[in-house]
């Protein structure tokens, strides 16, 4: 479904068409599909936020939450920051409420629940405070469970950070970073990333001294660089 829509969406994002509010409902549906089918399209989601920015009366908190949660699944990329930049601290707009009464709404987008909770999730994930992150996620299941594959996507990010940081890691610590997973699940992730159980409690990640070594920058002056100068001195 998501794949089938992708082409239609690409057309909707071309040139000035990107700012056409008539496309909003299709784009919103596309967001829902991404949540359900574990698909992802940053550019389309940014276009939705852009349309909210231009048409504040169309702002949907629900869709925005899904976009932000989807952005969390794409760490270590900075999609979450990009989304955040398109939100507004404070917007005021008129909305026709029930009974056709026009009421003025002052919305503090960033401070309102549950957007502020997702902002907090983003913040601790950026700080790699994974333990804290998992505790939080457990406390808000209705929000995160809507995004299919949410937890595993975050685990991929955890593995990315572990993979660049450790040569060997304590097995218990790794399980904890991955959200307190059980032994067989841990085995699955270890295998997936080509890591090895070195001993009972230690997992070997990779030989890092090949990637991370002291660099020496020395000056290289070749003849061509100074030939002109030397010639001029003659």
């Amino acid at each position, binding site marked *: 479904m998501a794949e089938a829509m992708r082409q239609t969406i690409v057309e909707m994002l071309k040139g000035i068409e990107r*700012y056409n509010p008539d496309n909003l409902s299709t784009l919103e549906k596309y967001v829902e599909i991404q949540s359900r089918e574990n698909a992802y399209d940053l550019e389309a989601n940014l276009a939705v936020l852009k349309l909210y920015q*231009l048409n504040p009366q169309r702002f949907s908190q629900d869709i925005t939450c899904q976009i932000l949660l989807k952005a969390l699944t794409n760490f*270590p990329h900075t999609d979450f920051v990009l989304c955040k930049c398109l939100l*507004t601290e404070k917007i005021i707009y008129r909305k026709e409420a029930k009974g056709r009464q026009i009421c003025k709404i002052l919305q503090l987008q960033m401070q309102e629940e549950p957007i502020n909770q997702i902002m907090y999730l983003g913040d601790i994930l*950026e700080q790699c405070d994974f333990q804290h992150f998992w505790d939080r996620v457990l406390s808000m299941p209705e929000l995160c469970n809507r995004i299919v594959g949410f937890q595993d996507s975050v685990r991929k990010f955890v593995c990315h950070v572990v993979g*660049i940081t*450790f040569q060997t890691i304590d097995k218990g610590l790794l399980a904890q970073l991955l959200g307190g997973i059980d032994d067989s699940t841990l085995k699955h992730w270890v295998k997936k990333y080509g890591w090895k159980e070195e001993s009972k409690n230690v997992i070997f990640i990779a030989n890092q001294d090949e990637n991370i070594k002291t*660099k020496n920058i020395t000056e290289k002056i070749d003849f061509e660089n100074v030939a002109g100068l030397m010639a001029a001195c003659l």
Partner: protein
Amino acid sequence: MYDDYNDQYDSYADYGPVADTHTDEYDRDAYRQVPELVRKFLIYFRNCINEGVIFEVQTLYENSFPKLSEQFFDKQSWPDETDVAHIVDNDPVFLVLYKELYYRHIYARIPGGPTLEQRFGSFFNYCDLFNYILSAETPVPLELPDQWLWELIDEFVYQFQCFAQYRARLLKKTPEEIENLNAHNNIWSVLCILNVLHSLVDKSKIKSQLEVYASGGDPDSVAGSFGRHSLYKMLGYFSLVGLLRLHSLLGDYYQAIKVLENVELYKKSAYSHVPACQISTAYYVGFAYMMMRRYADAIRTFSSILLYIQRTKQLFTSRSYQNDQINKQTEQMYHLLAICLVLHPQCIDEVLQQALREKNYHEKMYKMQYGDLAEFEACFLYACPKFLSPCPPPPDAPNEDYVKEAIKHQTQVFMDEVAQQKMLPTIRSYLKLYTTLPLSKLATFMCSSTRPDGSWDLDKEVATLGIYLLCFKHKMKNIVWTKGSSGLDGKFQSGSELDFYIDHDMIHIADTKVAHRYGDFFIRKILKFEELNRKLHKIKI
């Protein structure tokens, strides 16, 4: 594509009397004599444009017009259209171009800035100009110097920015003014600006042209009848940069970078001969990269343009409105470079390091390294673009000033990032001293500097340190552009000078050691002596 834009433009008809407070002044101006010198200039200027004597037009635009402005119209406007029309035989195209300069002069030089009527007037004049260019069936017979075309697009976006700020400031406006503004919300609306810029991009087929150019082909082969015409081609190119700026002002950094696909940012190209455009491009691209946490890309972008400015700075020393702009943007880029280097220390060109030293950025950088958040914020606020909210406040919004909201928000996003990284400089400063360091020892260092009374539990502190170290690695591994047509592409790299990994309980550190560079030093001395020698030879006693 520009049908919408014409619709909006139709509202010109219902645009009634706007600001009446200034009409008196206007009447007085209306009877002002046009000085003889100015009259002659206008006639000559018009002839040169009509005959397409491009070099002469360039001189008149770049030198004569500013000179006459200074001489006759310092702090006042050029003569109104009605006084000029008969001098130039009511030439409609010339009058539109004249008015573009006329309004630009008002924006730049009249104390207190333009009136509401003038803001509207300038907008409609841009509509006339772009309609003339865009709705023609064949390319219009007009050629203007690239410098002018660049300034035209840049000014168009600038005036939109001014209007949006003016619009968001409700505090000192009368109810009539607010009503008038609400009745004309389509004037200077962001959609209108986007529409114009996109239309110019489409009409010129500049995107295809750049793509072919980047792959070594002949851009004319895909340019179409309009895009082959220099006016359209360059307006299309400058509109891409206009879009870059517009997207940045609205906090859309992804689109900002994306719109420049196929533009070769780090090479000289057939499109890169207007310095102000190059500088502006680098400023916004670098800024967007910084916000996307692509520090290595931001540093590369700022470095290359700042080196270019260093080499050519004598070009920008004369005092003009454009040069003031360039010099301000240069200062802003030094600030941004300083911020990026604090967050992501890395080697930069010796010349720039020297410049940072001379301009006293080291104190600012030192404060930021020591976690002075106020310094970060001050540098950011000085150096960031003037962010805008894309929509005007709604008709019944309380009378407040909304102009700061957007800047506040972007600053908040940036400061959140800084706060997330607040422990990294401390950790870096310790790691720099060792090649291997046990986790527990580093944890002890970090605690004893903040809590010398020893009231801490080592295991807990080692666990906390573990989180900081993961954060360090995460924040220092970023996408870096290496090749490809889009500035968004890239690979994850650790570009910062210090790196490490953890093996069991030990941190292994890899630092970058830079050997002293003597070459530059000697070359500079040699050149200096050469110069001295030449001078000595010239002295005749």
